[in-house]
């Protein structure tokens, strides 16, 4: 068996302890001294080959970027917008800006032009670094409104010829040249600027995901990042040279905390895929030592694995189910901290050899020491699934305001939850109203501009997260979801829609679910089918379809989803059973503001958009016709009359 036997090369503990005294670019310069040209810092796949950048080169590029920005006119305390994809330029840009004492503000590349302009206006950005022509086009469209921006730097020169003469635009390679020129003129300038930084300076302004409110701009200091990073380096099995893969959007907190926090402080290697489409393949190429991905990633992966196992002929599913059951048994024993018998251990060893290890290898995870999941409440079934197939998936808790995620263990923690944080410097407490409170040095510095509704969530050093946890009555805690989202049925019983949705999304055929029922007699749901998995299921049964809409309205598909929900219902208490569902005719889309850019459902928007369906679900109708908005593949948007059936899952619809 080829498990990861590589020894963990720990960072020198003294060096780690001293890190909170420096800014992130200062740490880069110290890492370059320590790890120099021998160790790899970054790796990027280009022309089909992995190309490495050493720590010295990493510092060199960052220095040139910083000096280039100075010669373009960047000053201390300026704000700079970043619209970048995963690639070395993202890190050079961000750390370069920080070494001058300016503040980067990462944005999602899929954001619409008007929203970008509004954000840039709000932070009064003096520069923007953008990825490619697509982003430049958006910015040029609104040039008159963005007159406060001095220059725009673009990374990818593809297709930029028509704009070559525009003095507003500067290419990244030109920027590096400008930096090198300035370095020759004033060789001490970079060092001087670099060491003027203080650890309490603001390192980053970043948007919250905005599931329950308008996204807020969170200010995080260098110390927030270094503190979070040091906790990880001291407590997690990661060391110098370990591989980490950058796959999430650069404006998400997961990517920021790893990209400029943990990997930088811990001397890990960041690997960048060749293109977003090839990310999964490149992931397997690298075989990372440590993974952290948001909940959606793991839910999709679990769905995909299950769906593809089901379609893999008669022999493999049997073998898989056999070894999976053994894995589940062992998981339950270990959860209760009971001893595992030698017989079970032997069977697991066989199962791993025969099918589970090849499976993990297939998803590029055969070398993973520990995998982490964060970002939203995790369905315990997802955790159990991956634990059972042999991937050590650990739950993390955190948010943008806590500067990222830290591992937690909710079992046997008791009602106050004091024991559940696995990092000694990060404390968690469950308040009397079940809200989760977090205290650590990584808690954010404040919101940029106004604080928004609800005031300051920091009280006496405790961050009021707005998430709630529930005690199951014995020993275990469960994170339920956002406090604002908690619903109560007509009977007055409280429940969390996120909890139910996570259960449904575990089905390989359900992509997204929006649970209804706040103040209403029973629980119902709007459902998005998983186009890929249901598509191949349908293909096997000779059901033809051209589009998502067509597939989701097929009788057979309705029957399939009905069976899935009935299965889920059987494990739920009566009051939480989903009674009626509608399969939505289109996927929820970030471009229609129905989900956030990180893929979380925006409940208010969905309820507003599909209100006719919601009304129909709580009436006697068995069918509803709505005027739906459809986006064709050629970009055309049409409004069309669509009839959707309402599926009854339980005969008695009245809430008991």
């Amino acid at each position, binding site marked *: 068996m080829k498990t990861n036997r590589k020894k963990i090369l720990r960072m020198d503990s003294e060096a780690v302890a001293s890190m909170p005294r420096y800014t992130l670019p200062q740490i880069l310069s110290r890492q370059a001294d320590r790890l120099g040209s021998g160790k790899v810092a970054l790796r990027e796949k280009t022309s*089909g080959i992995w190309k490495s950048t050493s720590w010295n080169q990493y510092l060199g590029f960052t220095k040139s970027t910083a000096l280039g920005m100075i010669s373009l006119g960047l000053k201390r305390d300026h704000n700079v917008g970043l619209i970048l994809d995963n690639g070395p330029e993202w890190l050079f840009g961000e750390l370069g800006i920080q070494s001058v004492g300016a503040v980067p503000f990462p944005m999602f590349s899929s954001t619409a032009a008007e929203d970008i302009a509004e954000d840039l206006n709000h932070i009064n950005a003096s520069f923007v670094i953008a990825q490619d022509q697509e982003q430049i086009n958006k910015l040029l469209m609104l040039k008159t409104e963005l007159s406060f921006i001095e220059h725009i730097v673009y990374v990818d020169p593809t*297709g930029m*010829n028509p704009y070559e003469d525009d003095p507003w635009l500067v290419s990244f390679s030109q920027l*590096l040249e400008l930096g090198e020129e300035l370095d020759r003129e004033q060789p001490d300038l970079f060092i001087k600027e670099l060491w003027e930084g203080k650890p309490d300076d603001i390192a980053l302004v970043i948007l919250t995901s905005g599931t329950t409110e308008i996204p807020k701009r969170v200010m995080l200091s260098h110390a927030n990042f270094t503190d979070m990073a040091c906790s990880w380096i001291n407590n997690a099995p990661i060391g110098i040279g370990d591989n980490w893969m950058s796959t999430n959007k650069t404006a998400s907190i997961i990517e920021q905390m790893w990209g400029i926090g943990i990997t930088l402080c811990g001397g890990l290697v960041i690997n960048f895929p060749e*293109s977003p*489409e*090839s990310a999964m393949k490149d992931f397997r190429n690298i075989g990372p030592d440590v993974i952290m991905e948001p909940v959606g990633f793991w839910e999709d992966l679990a769905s995909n694995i299950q769906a593809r196992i089901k379609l893999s002929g008669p022999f493999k599913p049997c073998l898989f189910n056999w070894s999976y059951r053994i894995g589940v048994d062992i998981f339950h024993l270990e959860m209760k901290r009971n001893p595992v018998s030698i017989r079970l251990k032997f069977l697991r060893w066989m199962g791993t050899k025969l099918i589970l290890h090849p499976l993990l290898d297939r998803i590029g995870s055969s070398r993973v020491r520990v995998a982490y999941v964060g970002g939203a409440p995790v369905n315990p079934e997802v955790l159990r699934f991956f634990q059972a197939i042999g991937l050590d998936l650990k739950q993390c808790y955190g948010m943008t305001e806590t500067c990222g995620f830290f591992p937690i263990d909710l079992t046997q923690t008791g009602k106050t939850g004091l024991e559940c944080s696995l990092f000694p410097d990060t404390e968690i407490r469950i308040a009397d109203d079940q809200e989760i409170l977090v205290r650590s040095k990584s808690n954010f510095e404040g919101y940029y501009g106004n604080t928004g509704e609800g005031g300051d969530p920091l009280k006496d050093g405790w961050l009021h997260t707005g998430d709630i946890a529930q005690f199951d009555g014995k020993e275990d805690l469960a994170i339920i979801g956002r406090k604002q989202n908690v619903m109560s049925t007509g009977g007055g019983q409280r429940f969390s829609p996120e909890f139910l949705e996570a259960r449904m999304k575990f089905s390989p055929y359900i992509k997204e679910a929006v649970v209804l029922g706040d103040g209403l007699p029973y629980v119902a749901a709007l459902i998005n089918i998983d186009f890929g998995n249901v598509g191949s299921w349908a293909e096997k049964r000779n059901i033809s379809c051209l589009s998502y809409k067509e597939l989701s309205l097929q009788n057979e598909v309705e029957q399939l989803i009905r069976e899935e929900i009935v299965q889920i219902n059987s494990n739920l208490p009566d009051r939480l059973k989903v009674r009626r569902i509608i399969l939505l005719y289109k996927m929820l889309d970030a471009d229609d503001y129905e989900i956030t850019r990180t893929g979380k459902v925006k409940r208010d928007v969905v309820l507003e958009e599909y209100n006719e369906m919601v009304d129909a679900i709580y009436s006697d109708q068995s069918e509803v016709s709505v005027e739906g908005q459809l986006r064709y*593949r050629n*970009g055309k948007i049409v409004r069309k009359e669509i009839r959707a059936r309402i599926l009854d899952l339980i005969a008695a619809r009245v809430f008991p």
Partner: protein
Amino acid sequence: MKAFRGKLNIFASKLPEDRLADLEVKDLTLVFGGVVALSKIDLTVKTGELVGIVGPNGAGKTSLLNCITGILKPRNGKILFNGNEITSLPVHRLATLGIARTYQNIELYPDRSVLANVNLARHIHSKYNLGNASFFLGNVREEEAHHLEIIENLIDFLEMQPIRKRSVGSLSYGMRKRVELGRALALEPTLLVLDEPFAGMTMEEKEDTARFLIELNEEYDLTIILVEHDMSMVMSISERVVVFDFGVKIAEGIPDFVQNHPHVIKAYHGEI
């Protein structure tokens, strides 16, 4: 690093005199049995032009391309390329002269990877012999590395990185067309002849292809002749459009002029 993404070296490094691709078709007539597929066609394409050829079904567009690329031999008339007559030259000689084409019905090796299919076009630029190649000697290795570099450059340009090692048979129709374009470009042509490059593509794929063609034409002065049914695409990217009907050239000029030409309207919509 994407910031250092270079140009297409095989085209960017060419001197202006190596980019010459003046094509002249004189009095061309092609006959299949009793059917006159092309009758007395005159057509001139100058270096650096992007010319679109349109016309209803059976108008003789593809026949003309087949004559230019040497697949069909005309009964009468001459085809001159940079002043030399190429009418009766065999196809492989035309490839070395710098004429490359793609086909209406994709002609690739479906079981081989994208890399292998594109690499195929490099053989006219290989200098090593069978003996050296059998043992993969030093110079062969060097040369192959050089070819691979050129192909990777093309793959980068055509944004085919994620499908590099996929077999062509498993790709969508639109992507196969792109692979075929890549193979034509790997020949380092001076004249690129495309037979329906947009057929069967989604809107996004069409836009991508249009972007590639415009960049090849404007940035690298590559001369392009394309036959296409999608009028909006042809009209938006061509500098000059030639319209055929029943083997006869009925109109020629800038897109606006051609679109409003009475003969063209008649050919497409019938008598009004």
